[in-house]
Protein backbone atom coordinates (compact mmCIF):
# COMPACT_ATOMS: atom_id res chain seq x y z
CA UNK A 1 0.00 0.00 0.00
CA UNK A 2 2.72 2.37 0.99
CA UNK A 3 4.65 1.53 -2.15
CA UNK A 4 1.73 2.40 -4.34
CA UNK A 5 1.30 5.66 -2.56
CA UNK A 6 4.94 6.39 -3.05
CA UNK A 7 4.60 5.62 -6.74
CA UNK A 8 1.73 8.07 -7.00
CA UNK A 9 3.69 10.60 -5.03
CA UNK A 10 6.77 10.24 -7.22
CA UNK A 11 4.61 10.52 -10.30
CA UNK A 12 3.29 13.85 -9.16
CA UNK A 13 6.69 15.21 -8.30
CA UNK A 14 7.30 15.41 -12.01
CA UNK A 15 3.98 17.02 -12.85
CA UNK A 16 4.51 20.48 -11.43
CA UNK A 17 7.21 21.80 -13.79
CA UNK A 18 5.68 20.31 -16.95
CA UNK A 19 4.42 23.70 -18.14
CA UNK A 20 6.39 26.88 -18.48
CA UNK A 21 3.24 28.75 -19.26
CA UNK A 22 2.39 31.12 -16.41
CA UNK A 23 -1.15 31.75 -15.21
CA UNK A 24 -0.91 35.54 -15.29
CA UNK A 25 -0.44 35.34 -19.05
CA UNK A 26 -3.89 33.85 -19.45
CA UNK A 27 -6.43 35.79 -21.52
CA UNK A 28 -9.84 36.41 -19.93
CA UNK A 29 -11.63 35.13 -23.06
CA UNK A 30 -11.48 31.30 -22.91
CA UNK A 31 -11.86 30.91 -26.69
CA UNK A 32 -8.95 33.24 -27.43
CA UNK A 33 -6.94 31.59 -24.68
CA UNK A 34 -7.47 28.13 -26.18
CA UNK A 35 -6.37 29.41 -29.58
CA UNK A 36 -3.33 31.07 -28.03
CA UNK A 37 -2.30 27.86 -26.24
CA UNK A 38 -2.73 25.84 -29.44
CA UNK A 39 -0.66 28.33 -31.44
CA UNK A 40 2.04 28.40 -28.74
CA UNK A 41 2.43 24.66 -29.13
CA UNK A 42 3.16 25.11 -32.84
CA UNK A 43 5.80 27.79 -32.42
CA UNK A 44 9.41 26.95 -31.85
CA UNK A 45 11.35 28.60 -29.09
CA UNK A 46 14.33 29.98 -31.00
CA UNK A 47 16.49 29.93 -27.87
CA UNK A 48 15.99 26.26 -27.01
CA UNK A 49 15.20 25.21 -30.57
CA UNK A 50 13.45 21.90 -29.94
CA UNK A 51 10.86 23.09 -27.48
CA UNK A 52 7.67 24.91 -28.28
CA UNK A 53 7.22 28.34 -26.74
CA UNK A 54 4.43 26.77 -24.70
CA UNK A 55 6.97 24.55 -22.94
CA UNK A 56 9.89 26.93 -22.74
CA UNK A 57 10.92 29.01 -19.77
CA UNK A 58 13.08 31.34 -21.85
CA UNK A 59 12.37 35.07 -21.64
CA UNK A 60 12.09 35.25 -25.40
CA UNK A 61 9.49 32.45 -25.44
CA UNK A 62 7.52 34.37 -22.85
CA UNK A 63 7.66 37.49 -25.03
CA UNK A 64 6.47 35.43 -28.00
CA UNK A 65 3.55 34.03 -26.01
CA UNK A 66 2.62 37.58 -25.12
CA UNK A 67 2.89 38.69 -28.75
CA UNK A 68 0.63 35.82 -29.87
CA UNK A 69 -1.96 36.81 -27.27
CA UNK A 70 -1.77 40.47 -28.23
CA UNK A 71 -2.28 39.71 -31.88
CA UNK A 72 -5.18 37.33 -31.26
CA UNK A 73 -6.79 39.86 -28.93
CA UNK A 74 -6.40 42.50 -31.64
CA UNK A 75 -8.45 40.31 -33.98
CA UNK A 76 -5.76 38.42 -35.91
CA UNK A 77 -6.65 34.99 -37.24
CA UNK A 78 -4.37 32.09 -36.23
CA UNK A 79 -2.79 32.17 -39.68
CA UNK A 80 -2.11 35.91 -39.46
CA UNK A 81 -0.47 35.64 -36.05
CA UNK A 82 1.65 32.74 -37.32
CA UNK A 83 2.60 34.67 -40.45
CA UNK A 84 3.69 37.66 -38.38
CA UNK A 85 6.27 35.60 -36.52
CA UNK A 86 7.23 33.67 -39.65
CA UNK A 87 8.03 36.95 -41.41
CA UNK A 88 10.55 37.76 -38.69
CA UNK A 89 12.07 34.38 -37.93
CA UNK A 90 11.46 32.42 -41.12
CA UNK A 91 9.90 28.97 -41.51
CA UNK A 92 12.15 27.73 -38.71
CA UNK A 93 9.78 29.25 -36.15
CA UNK A 94 7.16 26.64 -36.97
CA UNK A 95 7.57 23.24 -35.39
CA UNK A 96 5.56 21.78 -38.25
CA UNK A 97 7.41 23.12 -41.30
CA UNK A 98 5.27 24.27 -44.23
CA UNK A 99 5.32 22.45 -47.56
CA UNK A 100 7.95 24.14 -49.70
CA UNK A 101 10.19 23.02 -52.54
CA UNK A 102 12.93 22.57 -49.97
CA UNK A 103 10.93 20.38 -47.60
CA UNK A 104 9.51 18.27 -50.44
CA UNK A 105 13.04 17.66 -51.73
CA UNK A 106 14.20 16.82 -48.21
CA UNK A 107 11.51 14.18 -47.74
CA UNK A 108 11.66 12.82 -51.26
CA UNK A 109 15.46 12.52 -51.40
CA UNK A 110 15.80 9.30 -49.35
CA UNK A 111 13.10 7.56 -51.39
CA UNK A 112 14.64 8.77 -54.64
CA UNK A 113 18.10 7.61 -53.51
CA UNK A 114 16.75 4.20 -52.54
CA UNK A 115 14.93 3.73 -55.84
CA UNK A 116 17.95 5.02 -57.77
CA UNK A 117 20.20 2.61 -55.93
CA UNK A 118 17.88 -0.32 -56.61
CA UNK A 119 17.73 0.62 -60.28
CA UNK A 120 21.51 0.79 -60.48
CA UNK A 121 21.84 -2.65 -58.88
CA UNK A 122 19.28 -4.15 -61.23
CA UNK A 123 21.10 -2.65 -64.18
CA UNK A 124 24.41 -3.99 -62.99
CA UNK A 125 23.22 -7.55 -62.47
CA UNK A 126 20.88 -7.82 -65.43
CA UNK A 127 21.43 -11.03 -67.28
CA UNK A 128 22.60 -10.23 -70.78
CA UNK A 129 20.23 -11.69 -73.33
CA UNK A 130 17.19 -11.00 -71.16
CA UNK A 131 14.90 -8.05 -71.74
CA UNK A 132 17.83 -5.71 -72.27
CA UNK A 133 19.56 -7.82 -74.89
CA UNK A 134 18.46 -5.40 -77.57
CA UNK A 135 20.35 -2.55 -75.88
CA UNK A 136 23.64 -4.42 -75.67
CA UNK A 137 25.56 -5.08 -78.85
CA UNK A 138 26.26 -8.77 -79.31
CA UNK A 139 30.03 -8.58 -78.88
CA UNK A 140 29.70 -6.57 -75.64
CA UNK A 141 27.16 -9.00 -74.27
CA UNK A 142 29.59 -11.83 -74.87
CA UNK A 143 32.34 -9.92 -73.07
CA UNK A 144 30.18 -9.33 -70.00
CA UNK A 145 30.68 -11.82 -67.16
CA UNK A 146 28.00 -14.30 -66.22
CA UNK A 147 25.22 -12.93 -63.99
CA UNK A 148 26.56 -12.08 -60.61
CA UNK A 149 24.48 -14.54 -58.61
CA UNK A 150 27.52 -15.49 -56.49
CA UNK A 151 28.00 -11.82 -55.60
CA UNK A 152 24.36 -11.54 -54.54
CA UNK A 153 24.67 -14.70 -52.49
CA UNK A 154 27.84 -13.43 -50.85
CA UNK A 155 26.14 -10.14 -50.03
CA UNK A 156 23.17 -11.93 -48.48
CA UNK A 157 25.44 -14.20 -46.46
CA UNK A 158 27.48 -11.18 -45.38
CA UNK A 159 24.37 -9.37 -44.21
CA UNK A 160 23.27 -12.42 -42.22
CA UNK A 161 26.71 -12.76 -40.67
CA UNK A 162 26.79 -9.08 -39.78
CA UNK A 163 23.35 -9.32 -38.18
CA UNK A 164 24.46 -12.42 -36.26
CA UNK A 165 27.61 -10.70 -35.06
CA UNK A 166 25.62 -7.64 -33.95
CA UNK A 167 23.21 -9.87 -32.05
CA UNK A 168 26.06 -11.78 -30.43
CA UNK A 169 27.57 -8.51 -29.27
CA UNK A 170 24.40 -6.68 -28.24
CA UNK A 171 21.68 -9.29 -27.87
CA UNK A 172 20.77 -11.07 -24.64
CA UNK A 173 19.60 -14.55 -25.60
CA UNK A 174 19.89 -15.69 -21.98
CA UNK A 175 17.32 -13.19 -20.72
CA UNK A 176 14.62 -15.18 -18.90
CA UNK A 177 10.91 -14.71 -19.34
CA UNK A 178 9.28 -12.58 -16.69
CA UNK A 179 5.90 -13.87 -15.56
CA UNK A 180 3.52 -11.35 -14.07
CA UNK A 181 3.59 -12.37 -10.42
CA UNK A 182 7.36 -12.13 -9.84
CA UNK A 183 7.42 -8.84 -11.71
CA UNK A 184 4.61 -7.43 -9.59
CA UNK A 185 6.30 -8.71 -6.43
CA UNK A 186 9.52 -7.03 -7.45
CA UNK A 187 7.81 -3.77 -8.31
CA UNK A 188 5.92 -3.69 -5.02
CA UNK A 189 8.98 -4.85 -3.10
CA UNK A 190 7.18 -7.77 -1.44
CA UNK A 191 7.59 -11.52 -1.63
CA UNK A 192 5.75 -13.62 -4.19
CA UNK A 193 3.99 -15.49 -1.43
CA UNK A 194 2.44 -12.30 -0.05
CA UNK A 195 1.10 -11.56 -3.53
CA UNK A 196 -0.39 -15.06 -3.62
CA UNK A 197 -1.84 -14.47 -0.15
CA UNK A 198 -3.43 -11.22 -1.26
CA UNK A 199 -4.85 -12.90 -4.36
CA UNK A 200 -6.34 -15.61 -2.18
CA UNK A 201 -7.82 -13.00 0.11
CA UNK A 202 -9.39 -11.16 -2.81
CA UNK A 203 -10.93 -14.42 -3.99
CA UNK A 204 -12.36 -15.22 -0.55
CA UNK A 205 -13.78 -11.70 -0.29
CA UNK A 206 -15.41 -12.10 -3.68
CA UNK A 207 -17.11 -15.34 -2.59
CA UNK A 208 -18.22 -13.67 0.61
CA UNK A 209 -19.59 -10.66 -1.29
CA UNK A 210 -21.41 -12.94 -3.71
CA UNK A 211 -23.43 -14.15 -0.71
CA UNK A 212 -23.81 -10.83 1.15
CA UNK A 213 -23.49 -8.01 -1.41
CA UNK A 214 -24.62 -5.44 1.15
CA UNK A 215 -21.46 -5.78 3.27
CA UNK A 216 -19.75 -2.43 2.80
CA UNK A 217 -16.70 -3.39 4.87
CA UNK A 218 -16.08 -6.45 2.70
CA UNK A 219 -16.26 -4.29 -0.42
CA UNK A 220 -13.75 -1.87 1.12
CA UNK A 221 -11.38 -4.74 1.97
CA UNK A 222 -11.73 -6.17 -1.52
CA UNK A 223 -10.96 -2.72 -2.94
CA UNK A 224 -7.78 -2.48 -0.87
CA UNK A 225 -6.72 -5.97 -1.94
CA UNK A 226 -7.21 -5.07 -5.60
CA UNK A 227 -5.30 -1.86 -5.09
CA UNK A 228 -2.45 -3.78 -3.53
CA UNK A 229 -2.44 -6.03 -6.57
CA UNK A 230 -2.19 -3.00 -8.85
CA UNK A 231 -5.65 -3.57 -10.35
CA UNK A 232 -6.92 -0.04 -10.13
CA UNK A 233 -10.10 -0.27 -12.17
CA UNK A 234 -11.32 -3.18 -10.00
CA UNK A 235 -10.18 -1.36 -6.87
CA UNK A 236 -12.07 1.80 -7.83
CA UNK A 237 -15.23 -0.22 -8.57
CA UNK A 238 -15.10 -2.08 -5.24
CA UNK A 239 -14.28 1.03 -3.22
CA UNK A 240 -17.05 3.11 -4.76
CA UNK A 241 -19.43 0.26 -3.96
CA UNK A 242 -18.16 0.38 -0.36
CA UNK A 243 -18.68 4.15 -0.24
CA UNK A 244 -22.21 3.75 -1.55
CA UNK A 245 -22.85 1.25 1.25
CA UNK A 246 -21.89 3.77 3.92
CA UNK A 247 -18.12 3.25 4.19
CA UNK A 248 -17.33 6.94 4.03
CA UNK A 249 -14.30 7.23 6.28
CA UNK A 250 -11.39 9.35 5.06
CA UNK A 251 -9.35 6.16 4.50
CA UNK A 252 -11.86 4.54 2.17
CA UNK A 253 -12.72 7.72 0.27
CA UNK A 254 -9.05 8.59 -0.06
CA UNK A 255 -8.22 5.11 -1.35
CA UNK A 256 -11.09 5.39 -3.80
CA UNK A 257 -9.87 8.77 -5.06
CA UNK A 258 -6.35 7.45 -5.41
CA UNK A 259 -7.55 4.37 -7.28
CA UNK A 260 -9.47 6.61 -9.67
CA UNK A 261 -6.33 8.65 -10.26
CA UNK A 262 -4.22 5.55 -10.82
CA UNK A 263 -6.86 4.02 -13.08
CA UNK A 264 -7.22 7.10 -15.30
CA UNK A 265 -3.65 8.26 -14.88
CA UNK A 266 -4.94 11.78 -14.33
CA UNK A 267 -6.20 14.05 -11.58
CA UNK A 268 -9.85 13.56 -12.51
CA UNK A 269 -12.57 15.93 -11.21
CA UNK A 270 -14.25 12.98 -9.47
CA UNK A 271 -11.10 12.16 -7.51
CA UNK A 272 -10.48 15.80 -6.68
CA UNK A 273 -14.06 16.17 -5.46
CA UNK A 274 -13.48 13.25 -3.07
CA UNK A 275 -10.22 14.71 -1.81
CA UNK A 276 -11.96 18.07 -1.43
CA UNK A 277 -14.60 16.47 0.81
CA UNK A 278 -11.90 14.73 2.87
CA UNK A 279 -10.00 17.97 3.31
CA UNK A 280 -13.15 19.85 4.25
CA UNK A 281 -13.82 17.33 7.03
CA UNK A 282 -10.20 17.09 8.15
CA UNK A 283 -7.81 19.84 6.97
CA UNK A 284 -4.88 17.81 8.33
CA UNK A 285 -5.37 14.88 5.92
CA UNK A 286 -2.00 14.84 4.19
CA UNK A 287 -2.97 12.76 1.19
CA UNK A 288 -5.93 14.96 0.25
CA UNK A 289 -3.74 18.04 0.56
CA UNK A 290 -1.10 16.35 -1.52
CA UNK A 291 -3.34 15.72 -4.50
CA UNK A 292 -5.34 18.97 -4.24
CA UNK A 293 -2.06 20.88 -4.21
CA UNK A 294 -0.82 18.88 -7.20
CA UNK A 295 -4.03 19.73 -9.05
CA UNK A 296 -3.59 23.44 -8.31
CA UNK A 297 0.03 23.29 -9.46
CA UNK A 298 -0.97 21.49 -12.62
CA UNK A 299 -3.56 24.16 -13.35
CA UNK A 300 -0.79 26.73 -12.98
CA UNK A 301 -2.06 28.17 -9.71
CA UNK A 302 1.23 27.96 -7.83
CA UNK A 303 0.29 30.25 -4.93
CA UNK A 304 -2.75 28.09 -4.15
CA UNK A 305 -0.69 24.90 -4.42
CA UNK A 306 1.90 26.31 -2.04
CA UNK A 307 -0.81 27.41 0.41
CA UNK A 308 -2.45 23.96 0.43
CA UNK A 309 0.84 22.11 0.90
CA UNK A 310 2.24 24.47 3.55
CA UNK A 311 -1.01 24.45 5.51
CA UNK A 312 -1.17 20.65 5.55
CA UNK A 313 2.54 20.35 6.36
CA UNK A 314 2.10 22.58 9.40
CA UNK A 315 -0.64 20.24 10.65
CA UNK A 316 1.55 17.10 10.54
CA UNK A 317 3.58 16.04 13.59
CA UNK A 318 7.07 17.52 13.59
CA UNK A 319 9.61 15.25 11.91
CA UNK A 320 7.02 13.07 10.17
CA UNK A 321 7.66 11.91 6.62
CA UNK A 322 4.48 13.54 5.32
CA UNK A 323 5.44 16.87 6.79
CA UNK A 324 8.85 16.78 5.13
CA UNK A 325 7.39 15.61 1.85
CA UNK A 326 4.77 18.35 1.72
CA UNK A 327 7.32 21.00 2.62
CA UNK A 328 9.71 19.81 -0.09
CA UNK A 329 6.89 19.81 -2.58
CA UNK A 330 5.90 23.38 -1.72
CA UNK A 331 9.51 24.56 -1.93
CA UNK A 332 9.84 23.13 -5.44
CA UNK A 333 7.23 25.41 -6.90
CA UNK A 334 8.71 28.16 -9.03
CA UNK A 335 9.01 31.43 -7.14
CA UNK A 336 6.12 33.80 -7.91
Amino acid at each position, binding site marked *: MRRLLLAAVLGFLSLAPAFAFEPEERLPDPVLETRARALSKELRC*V*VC*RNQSIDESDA*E*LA*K*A*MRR*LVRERLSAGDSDAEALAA*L*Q*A*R*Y*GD*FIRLLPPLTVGTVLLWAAPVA*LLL*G*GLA*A*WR*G*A*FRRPGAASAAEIPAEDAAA*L*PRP*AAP*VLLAAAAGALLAAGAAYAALGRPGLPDQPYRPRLAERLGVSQSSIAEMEGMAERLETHIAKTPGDGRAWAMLGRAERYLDRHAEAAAALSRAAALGETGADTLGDLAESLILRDNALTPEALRLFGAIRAADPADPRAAWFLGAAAAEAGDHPRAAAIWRDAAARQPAGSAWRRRLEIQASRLPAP
Partner: protein
Amino acid sequence: MNRNAWMPLFVFVILLGIAGARLGQPEPPLPSALEGKPLPAFSLPLLAGEGRLTPDTLKGRPAILNVFGSWCAACVAEHPIWAEVGKRVDVYGVAWLDEPAKTRAWLAERGNPYKAVGVDKDSRFALDMGVAGAPESYLISPEGRIVAKVPGPVTETVWKETLLPALEAMK
Protein backbone atom coordinates in the same frame (compact mmCIF):
# COMPACT_ATOMS: atom_id res chain seq x y z
CA MET B 1 31.35 -7.43 -62.79
CA ASN B 2 29.99 -4.08 -63.85
CA ARG B 3 31.52 -0.98 -62.40
CA ASN B 4 28.05 0.57 -62.03
CA ALA B 5 27.25 -2.00 -59.38
CA TRP B 6 29.47 -0.11 -56.96
CA MET B 7 27.81 3.24 -57.60
CA PRO B 8 25.08 2.98 -54.91
CA LEU B 9 27.64 1.92 -52.34
CA PHE B 10 29.89 4.75 -53.42
CA VAL B 11 27.08 7.31 -53.10
CA PHE B 12 26.11 5.84 -49.74
CA VAL B 13 29.65 6.11 -48.38
CA ILE B 14 29.87 9.72 -49.51
CA LEU B 15 26.57 10.58 -47.82
CA LEU B 16 27.70 8.74 -44.68
CA GLY B 17 30.91 10.76 -44.72
CA ILE B 18 29.03 14.07 -45.03
CA ALA B 19 26.64 13.11 -42.24
CA GLY B 20 29.50 11.96 -40.01
CA ALA B 21 31.46 15.16 -40.57
CA ARG B 22 28.43 17.34 -39.82
CA LEU B 23 27.66 15.41 -36.64
CA GLY B 24 30.39 17.04 -34.58
CA GLN B 25 29.82 20.56 -35.85
CA PRO B 26 27.93 23.21 -33.91
CA GLU B 27 24.40 24.06 -34.93
CA PRO B 28 24.36 26.61 -37.70
CA PRO B 29 22.85 29.97 -36.76
CA LEU B 30 19.31 30.65 -37.87
CA PRO B 31 19.01 32.05 -41.37
CA SER B 32 17.76 35.60 -41.31
CA ALA B 33 14.31 36.23 -42.69
CA LEU B 34 14.75 39.99 -42.61
CA GLU B 35 17.91 40.55 -44.68
CA GLY B 36 17.14 42.91 -47.54
CA LYS B 37 13.97 44.17 -45.91
CA PRO B 38 13.37 47.60 -44.40
CA LEU B 39 13.73 48.00 -40.64
CA PRO B 40 10.47 47.32 -38.79
CA ALA B 41 8.99 50.27 -36.95
CA PHE B 42 10.32 50.61 -33.42
CA SER B 43 10.65 53.28 -30.80
CA LEU B 44 12.91 52.58 -27.85
CA PRO B 45 13.59 54.82 -24.86
CA LEU B 46 17.21 55.92 -24.73
CA LEU B 47 19.48 54.67 -21.99
CA ALA B 48 20.81 58.19 -21.50
CA GLY B 49 18.85 61.40 -21.83
CA GLU B 50 15.62 62.36 -23.50
CA GLY B 51 14.28 61.15 -26.81
CA ARG B 52 13.90 57.76 -28.40
CA LEU B 53 15.78 55.46 -30.74
CA THR B 54 13.73 54.94 -33.93
CA PRO B 55 14.54 53.95 -37.53
CA ASP B 56 14.63 57.68 -38.28
CA THR B 57 17.55 58.11 -35.85
CA LEU B 58 19.61 55.86 -38.12
CA LYS B 59 18.57 57.28 -41.48
CA GLY B 60 20.86 59.14 -43.87
CA ARG B 61 24.08 57.23 -43.10
CA PRO B 62 25.00 53.58 -42.88
CA ALA B 63 24.70 52.27 -39.35
CA ILE B 64 25.28 49.20 -37.26
CA LEU B 65 22.72 48.10 -34.73
CA ASN B 66 24.11 45.83 -32.00
CA VAL B 67 21.83 43.89 -29.65
CA PHE B 68 23.55 43.25 -26.33
CA GLY B 69 22.91 42.85 -22.61
CA SER B 70 24.92 43.08 -19.43
CA TRP B 71 23.93 39.44 -18.75
CA CYS B 72 25.48 38.21 -21.98
CA ALA B 73 28.93 36.64 -21.77
CA ALA B 74 29.64 36.66 -25.49
CA CYS B 75 28.88 40.41 -25.54
CA VAL B 76 31.82 40.97 -23.21
CA ALA B 77 34.11 39.18 -25.65
CA GLU B 78 32.71 41.10 -28.57
CA HIS B 79 32.69 44.52 -26.92
CA PRO B 80 36.19 45.84 -27.77
CA ILE B 81 35.57 45.64 -31.51
CA TRP B 82 32.87 48.33 -31.43
CA ALA B 83 35.35 51.05 -30.49
CA GLU B 84 37.27 50.03 -33.62
CA VAL B 85 34.21 49.74 -35.85
CA GLY B 86 32.87 53.04 -34.49
CA LYS B 87 35.61 54.90 -36.33
CA ARG B 88 34.18 53.76 -39.67
CA VAL B 89 30.43 53.70 -39.10
CA ASP B 90 27.84 54.81 -36.54
CA VAL B 91 27.23 52.03 -34.04
CA TYR B 92 23.96 51.99 -32.09
CA GLY B 93 23.29 49.61 -29.21
CA VAL B 94 20.10 47.99 -28.05
CA ALA B 95 20.18 46.76 -24.44
CA TRP B 96 17.97 43.70 -24.55
CA LEU B 97 16.19 42.17 -21.51
CA ASP B 98 18.31 44.27 -19.21
CA GLU B 99 17.86 46.64 -16.30
CA PRO B 100 19.03 50.14 -17.38
CA ALA B 101 21.06 50.46 -14.16
CA LYS B 102 22.93 47.24 -14.96
CA THR B 103 23.50 48.30 -18.56
CA ARG B 104 24.92 51.63 -17.39
CA ALA B 105 27.29 49.94 -14.94
CA TRP B 106 28.37 47.47 -17.61
CA LEU B 107 29.11 50.26 -20.10
CA ALA B 108 30.83 52.37 -17.45
CA GLU B 109 33.20 49.49 -16.75
CA ARG B 110 33.98 48.61 -20.38
CA GLY B 111 33.56 51.92 -22.18
CA ASN B 112 30.60 53.08 -24.24
CA PRO B 113 31.28 52.83 -27.97
CA TYR B 114 27.66 53.46 -28.96
CA LYS B 115 26.33 56.62 -30.51
CA ALA B 116 23.11 55.93 -28.66
CA VAL B 117 21.66 52.99 -26.74
CA GLY B 118 17.99 52.03 -26.86
CA VAL B 119 16.39 50.02 -24.06
CA ASP B 120 14.38 46.93 -25.03
CA LYS B 121 13.39 45.54 -21.67
CA ASP B 122 10.39 43.49 -22.78
CA SER B 123 11.70 42.04 -26.07
CA ARG B 124 9.31 43.95 -28.34
CA PHE B 125 12.12 45.19 -30.53
CA ALA B 126 13.84 41.78 -30.37
CA LEU B 127 10.71 40.01 -31.60
CA ASP B 128 10.21 42.54 -34.40
CA MET B 129 13.79 42.02 -35.54
CA GLY B 130 13.72 38.23 -35.25
CA VAL B 131 16.44 38.22 -32.58
CA ALA B 132 17.19 34.71 -31.31
CA GLY B 133 20.03 35.49 -28.91
CA ALA B 134 22.61 38.06 -27.91
CA PRO B 135 24.77 39.42 -29.31
CA GLU B 136 23.25 40.04 -32.70
CA SER B 137 24.24 42.80 -35.09
CA TYR B 138 22.73 44.39 -38.17
CA LEU B 139 24.21 46.52 -40.89
CA ILE B 140 21.64 49.11 -41.93
CA SER B 141 21.75 51.04 -45.19
CA PRO B 142 21.22 54.84 -45.26
CA GLU B 143 17.66 54.17 -46.50
CA GLY B 144 16.94 52.02 -43.46
CA ARG B 145 17.25 48.61 -45.12
CA ILE B 146 18.72 45.61 -43.25
CA VAL B 147 21.73 44.74 -45.39
CA ALA B 148 23.31 42.03 -43.27
CA LYS B 149 22.67 40.22 -40.02
CA VAL B 150 25.37 38.67 -37.85
CA PRO B 151 24.06 36.26 -35.23
CA GLY B 152 26.61 35.82 -32.46
CA PRO B 153 29.70 37.91 -31.74
CA VAL B 154 31.23 40.10 -34.45
CA THR B 155 34.85 39.01 -34.52
CA GLU B 156 37.75 40.65 -36.34
CA THR B 157 37.22 38.15 -39.16
CA VAL B 158 33.48 38.78 -39.45
CA TRP B 159 34.10 42.52 -39.49
CA LYS B 160 36.81 42.37 -42.14
CA GLU B 161 35.24 39.71 -44.36
CA THR B 162 31.51 40.38 -44.08
CA LEU B 163 30.53 43.74 -42.64
CA LEU B 164 33.33 45.97 -43.95
CA PRO B 165 32.98 44.84 -47.61
CA ALA B 166 29.20 45.30 -47.40
CA LEU B 167 29.77 48.75 -45.91
CA GLU B 168 32.25 49.70 -48.64
CA ALA B 169 29.82 48.47 -51.31
CA MET B 170 27.24 50.91 -49.99
CA LYS B 171 29.44 53.98 -50.42
